[in-house]
């Protein structure tokens, strides 16, 4: 399977879904309405927790000997 290297070549699809088409514009309006709601706090909290847990762990690892868990 080819990887995602071609991505710059295609750009936004022009298959009847472009900016001036009814369907394309409505799709983006719907999708955009959800995007604009913002990210729920619980998700942001989760990311923070994951991140700080990892930082704490790597700090511990660099302080003590390696290979111990």
């Amino acid at each position, binding site marked *: 399977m080819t990887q*995602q290297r071609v991505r710059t070549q295609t750009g936004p699809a022009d298959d009847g879904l472009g900016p001036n088409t009814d369907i*394309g514009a409505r*799709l983006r309006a719907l*999708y955009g309405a959800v*995007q604009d709601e913002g990210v729920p706090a619980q998700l942001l909290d*989760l990311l923070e927790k994951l991140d700080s847990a990892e930082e704490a762990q*790597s700090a511990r690892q660099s302080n003590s000997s390696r290979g111990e868990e």
Partner: protein
Amino acid sequence: MSAEPTTFKREMLSTLPSLRAFAVSLTGKHDKADDLVQDTVMKAWAKQSSFEMGTNIKAWLFTILRNEFYSQMRKRGREVQDSDGTFTERLSVHPSQYGAMDMQDFKKALGQLPDDQREAVILIGASGFSYEEAAEICDCAVGTMKSRVSRARTRLQDILKISGEADYGPDAVSTQVTTSNHSF
């Protein structure tokens, strides 16, 4: 360890709104979508060493989310089939350039598409992926992706033309809603 946590986190953060919108389009419900995004974030975090910085994190996250969605569907059976007629009220920000009725019709039309066509048209038309990226996310050939999008577009045009003004009654809305749950 090649991945640097803060960059990874930042890139993830910037993708979350779009990822969440895609999740809503798959599940049809905001609460389920948020659970799905949460599962995806945890999965992605656990696998972050397999992600190469500088490559397309958005496509990578969408792939994880989609796989997670279908694997949960398989495990849980058809629970997704329960009907709830709350598409409209769930959109707290209404797309202002269209009338409520217009968007309601559009959502119904989207909900009538087969799953593979709906997800194709959303990934290409709204998430902003190329056909190549979308094909990779859905694990199908690029040609397949193109034909799904094209069929979806034709179908949407047909439905929207047919439904016209006649469809505005509450009865029409409620019958549609019970048959189609998978849109925004």
